[in-house]
C-alpha cells in the first residue's frame, strides 16, 4: 500500500497553496457538444410497494394531479428479480436498479452475490460511468440513516434491503448526513467547513488505516470480512474528503452561492428528505453530478425503525403501537395509501423545484432531467404477488413513474403508458440509452424464484417504444 502515502505526500505539499484560486485551466468545462445534450437522472425509491389499483391520479398519485403534464405513468412493469417469501425485501430492493436477483451468501457478508450470471452494475452507475462530466462527482448516492430489515436465517445481510446502488458485488456506500452531501457538492469553503479540519482528518485516517491493515493479516476468514467493511469505510472517507473549494460550475451552468454551514438533523423526516432532495437538485444545477439515487427508507423496516415521517402524517402513535411501516404494508389499506402518498409528494416537491430552474439550451432543469420514482412490489400486502384462486402466484405490476423530459428524449406529457408485462430491466435499458449510455442490454429477466421457471441468464435487449 505505498500509493496512498505518495498521494498524501503530494497533498501535504499542496496544502500551502490550497487557498489560492485554481488556475482557470483547472476549471471543469463542458464542451459545447456535451452541453447541448447535458442530461441528469435522479432515482428515487420507496419501500414495501403499493397495492394494485392504487397507482393512479384518483388515489396514491393524487399529489401529482397538477403536474400531470410533466410526468409519464408507467403501468404494467414487472420487477422480475426477487424471491417469494421472506427474502423478498432483500432481493427485490438490492435488485431494483441492478435487475439481477441477489442471493444470500452469509448474514455478515455485505457483498452482493447473484443467483445466476455475472455481477451486475446498477443502472445509475452504468449511466454515471457514461455521462460523468470532467471534474464532477461520479454520482450522488443517498439514503436514510436506518439500517435493518435483515433476515439472518436466510443469509441475507441488511445491506440488501438498505442499498440500491451497486458496482458488481459491492454497494456504493450512501451518504446519510445532509452536511456530508453539502460538503461533497460545495467543497470545504462553500460548506463553511474549516480547511484546518482536513489535515487532522487525514492524519487520523493514516493512523487507523495502518493499525487495521496490520490486524487484517492476523484474522480468520469471517473476521476479515467484518474488518473489510471498516477498511472499505476508511477508503470511502478518504475518497470523499472535500475539496478546498468547489470547482466552479462547468460553463455554461450557473450555481447559486450559498454560504452558511448547512445541516438538517434527522428530526423531521419531511424536512430531512427535502434537504436531501434540494442537494440533489443543487448538484444537478451546479453541474456537480449528473446522476443521483435516493432510497427514502430501508425496505422491510422493523418496528425499531418506524420511520419518523409517520409523525408528519399523523400516524406515529399507531405505528408505535402496532409496528412499523412494513407492517402497514402487509395491511395494504387506506392508512398504507397515506404512506404511499407521502412518498409521491416527495416527487411533487422535486418537480416543482426543478421546473423553476433554468438550465442549458433555454430549457428548465426538469426538462433536461429524468426523475424516476418507483418501488419494488406491486402488491404491498402480498409483497409482490397475488395468489388468485387455484393457488397460482401472479406477479403484480410495480408502481413506477418518470418525471421530466430527459433533454427531449422522453415525452412526459401526462401519458399513462400500459406496458403490459414489460420488465423493469427494459425500462432501465431504454432510459439509459436515452441518457447517452451506449449499452445494448441490461439486467436479466428470470422469472421470480417460486414462479416456476427459474432464473435466466439472458440479458434484456428489448427497449420500450414511445416512452
Amino acid at each position, binding site marked *: 500500500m505505498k500509493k496512498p502515502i505518495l498521494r498524501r505526500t503530494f497533498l501535504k505539499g499542496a496544502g500551502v497553496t490550497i487557498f489560492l484560486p485554481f488556475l482557470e485551466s483547472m476549471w471543469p468545462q463542458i464542451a459545447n457538444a456535451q452541453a447541448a445534450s447535458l442530461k441528469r437522472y435522479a432515482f428515487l425509491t420507496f419501500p414495501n410497494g403499493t397495492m394494485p389499483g392504487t397507482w393512479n391520479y384518483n388515489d396514491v398519485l393524487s399529489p401529482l394531479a397538477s403536474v400531470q403534464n410533466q410526468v409519464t405513468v408507467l403501468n404494467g412493469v414487472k420487477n422480475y428479480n426477487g424471491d417469494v417469501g421472506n427474502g423478498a425485501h432483500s432481493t427485490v430492493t438490492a435488485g431494483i436498479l441492478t435487475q439481477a436477483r441477489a442471493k444470500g451468501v452469509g448474514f455478515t457478508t455485505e457483498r452482493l452475490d447473484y443467483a445466476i450470471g455475472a455481477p451486475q452494475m446498477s443502472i445509475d452507475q452504468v449511466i454515471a460511468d457514461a455521462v460523468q462530466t470532467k471534474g464532477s462527482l461520479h454520482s450522488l448516492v443517498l439514503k436514510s440513516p436506518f439500517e435493518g430489515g435483515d433476515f439472518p436465517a436466510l443469509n441475507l445481510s441488511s445491506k440488501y434491503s438498505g442499498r440500491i446502488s451497486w458496482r458488481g458485488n459491492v454497494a456504493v456506500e450512501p451518504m446519510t448526513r445532509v452536511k456530508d452531501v453539502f460538503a461533497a457538492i460545495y467543497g470545504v469553503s462553500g460548506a463553511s467547513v474549516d480547511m484546518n479540519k482536513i489535515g*487532522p482528518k487525514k492524519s487520523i485516517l493514516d493512523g487507523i488505516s495502518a493499525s487495521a491493515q496490520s490486524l487484517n493479516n492476523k484474522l480468520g476468514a469471517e473476521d476479515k470480512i467484518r474488518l473489510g467493511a471498516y477498511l472499505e469505510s476508511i477508503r470511502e472517507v478518504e475518497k470523499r474528503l472535500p475539496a478546498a473549494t468547489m470547482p466552479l460550475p462547468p460553463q455554461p451552468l450557473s450555481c447559486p452561492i450559498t454560504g452558511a454551514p448547512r445541516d438538517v438533523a434527522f428530526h423531521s423526516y419531511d424536512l430531512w428528505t427535502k434537504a436531501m432532495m434540494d442537494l440533489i437538485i443543487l448538484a444537478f444545477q451546479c453541474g456537480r453530478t449528473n446522476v443521483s439515487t435516493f432510497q427514502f427508507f430501508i425496505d422491510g423496516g422493523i418496528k425499531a425503525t418506524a420511520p419518523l415521517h409517520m409523525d408528519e402524517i399523523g400516524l406515529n402513535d399507531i405505528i408505535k403501537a402496532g409496528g412499523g411501516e412494513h407492517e402497514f404494508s402487509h395491511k395494504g389499506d387506506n392508512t398504507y395509501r397515506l404512506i404511499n402518498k407521502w412518498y409521491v409528494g416527495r416527487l411533487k416537491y422535486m418537480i416543482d423545484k426543478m421546473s423553476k430552474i433554468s438550465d442549458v439550451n433555454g430549457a428548465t432543469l426538469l426538462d433536461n432531467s429524468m426523475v424516476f420514482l418507483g418501488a419494488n412490489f406491486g402488491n404491498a400486502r402480498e409483497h409482490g404477488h397475488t395468489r388468485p384462486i387455484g393457488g397460482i402466484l401472479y406477479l403484480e405490476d410495480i408502481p413506477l413513474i418518470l418525471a421530466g423530459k430527459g433533454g427531449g428524449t422522453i415525452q412526459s406529457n401526462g401519458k399513462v403508458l400500459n406496458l403490459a408485462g414489460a420488465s423493469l430491466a427494459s425500462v432501465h435499458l431504454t432510459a439509459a440509452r436515452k441518457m447517452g449510455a451506449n449499452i445494448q442490454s441490461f439486467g436479466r429477466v428470470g422469472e421470480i424464484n417460486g414462479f416456476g421457471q427459474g432464473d435466466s441468464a439472458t440479458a434484456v435487449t428489448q427497449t420500450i417504444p414511445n416512452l
Partner: protein
Amino acid sequence: MRYTIYLIVMGCLLFLYGNCAPVFQTSQLPTYINEQASLSSPLSPVQGSSASAKLCADPAIKMKPIYVGLKRLSRTEINNSINDLFGVDYKLGDKLPLDASVLGFDNNASALTVSFSFLNIVIDESEALLNQAFLNASSRSLILICQTADAACATQVINKFIKKAYHRKITTADTQALLSVYQIRRTAGDTHEAALKVVLRTAISSVEYLYFSVGANGATSSSNRNLSAHELASRLSFFLWGTIPDDELLNLADLGTLQNPEILKAQTLRMLKSSKALYLVNGFASKWLDLDLLNGRTTNLPIFPQFTSQIRTDMIDETKYFLQEVILNDKSPLDLVNANYTFLNDRLASFYGITRAPNTNFTKTDISMTERRGLLGQGSFLTVTSGLSETSVVKRGHMILDKFICASPPPVPDNLQIPESFASLVTAREHSNARLANSSCVGCHRMMDPYGFILEGFGPYGTVRNQMPDGSAVDNLTILPDGRRYTSPKELTQDLAKDENYKYCISKNLMTYALGKMLVSRDETCKAVNVGIQSVSSTSKFSELIFSIVNDVSFKMEGSK
C-alpha cells in the same frame, strides 16, 4: 371503531401464517423450530427434553468454543465508554447511524457493521468531544497527566488512554503508532495539545477501540483460543455494565489472575452490586421484553382514559424495578415468570385495583392474593401485547412463546391469504376457532392462541376484567396442544416455572446478549441447554445463572471461523 377493526385485522395479518408446519412433536414443540434451526445445523437439539440434555452433556460439545468474532461496539456501548474514558457526558453513539437489532438486542456482532457514514461521523464528531474534554477541568486532568509539551509526555498520555480504550493488552507498537501520529501533527504545525487531540481521536476511531476482541498480542482468530485476561475483562464488563472495565478489573487482568474461576466469580458478584449493573436491566431485560414499545403507546384514548401517560411511565417503572429486584437483588430466575410480588406505587396499585400500604413511591408489593404472577401479570407486558382497544390472544401467545419458551413461530409469510369469511367473526374465540380450522393457520396458531387466552382476564391495559366488552363472560380457557389445561394464569405460570423450555429460554436470551451472538446451531444452543440445567431452579439465584454463563467455555474462549 375504526381502531377495533384495524386491530383485529392487524392481529390476523401479523400472526396468521400460511405455511407453518401443521404437525406437532410429542414433546409439544412445533416442528418449525427444528426446521428453522436446521438452516444452520441438521442436528439442533430438541429443546428441553431429556434427549437434548443428554446430547448436550457430551463433553465434546461442552468444551467446544463458539465463534463470535469481531464485534463493533454498539451505539450505547460507545456512549457509555466515551463517558468513562473522557469523564464527559458526550453522546457520540447517538450521532451514529442506528444499529440494526437482532432478536431485539442491539449488540449482535454480525449486525453491527461499519459504513462510510459511521466512520465519518466518528472522526468528525470526535473533534467536538475532544474540545469539550480539554475544556473541562476534571476530564482534562484525567487525560493530560503530564505538563511538558513533548513526545515523552505524549507517550504517557497515550499509554494511559489506550490501556482503557483498547479491549486487550496494549503493546509498544500500539504506542508507537499513535506517537507517530503525534509527531506528524507537530511537524504539520499543531501545538502539543492540538496534536494530542488528533491522537486521541485516532484512538477512538481505531479498530482497537471500535471493535471488541481484536486478538491479543498477535493471536490469530483462525484457530480456537482462550480469551486473554484483558479480553475477558472487556467481555465481562460489556456484558454486565455495557462499558469498558474499571481499574480493578484491569489490574486483575494485568496480574493475569482474572481467569481463575474464584476470582472471576468474585468479580462477577462485585460488578453486579455496582450501580453500573443497572445497565443489565436496560440493555438486556428491557430490550428482551420490548419495553420501548410501551413508550409510544397512545394514552388518554376515549375508550380507556384511565391509561394516562403517568400510568404508562408507572408500568415501565414497575417492570424495571421488578427486573432490578430479580436480576440485581439476586432472586431466582424463575421469579421472572412466577413471582408473587411486584413493585407498585399508589397510582398504579389503584389502577390495578390492588390494596396495599399507601406509598407514593414504588415498593415491593405482595400480589399472592391476585391472579398476577411475574412479568406476565404486569401492565407493561399486557399492554404491549394488546391493541389500542382490545386484547390480542395472538400477540400475547406469540410473546409468551417467543420470550419465555423460545418457540417463536416464523415471521408472517408473504403469501398470506386471509379467508374473507374471517371478516364477519366477532369474538376472539370465534376468530381463534376459525384459524384452528384453517389448514394454513393452524400450524402456528395451535400453539399461540391457547397461551394468549389464559390472560383474557386482563384487559388491553392490564386491568382485571370480569366480562368482555360486549358483556359476555371472560373466556380464558387454555388447552395446550399436548392436552394441558388451564383456567387461571397462576396455573400456567407455575407450570412455566417448571418447564425446561423456560430454563433453556432465559439462558439462551441472556447468553445471546452476553456474547452478542445468535445461538443457532446444535452446539451453540446446547450451551444454553447446559447453562439452564445447571443454574436455573427455584432455589438458584440470578447471579448463578450469570456466572454460569461467564464461566462457560463460550464466554472464556473464542472459536475459529
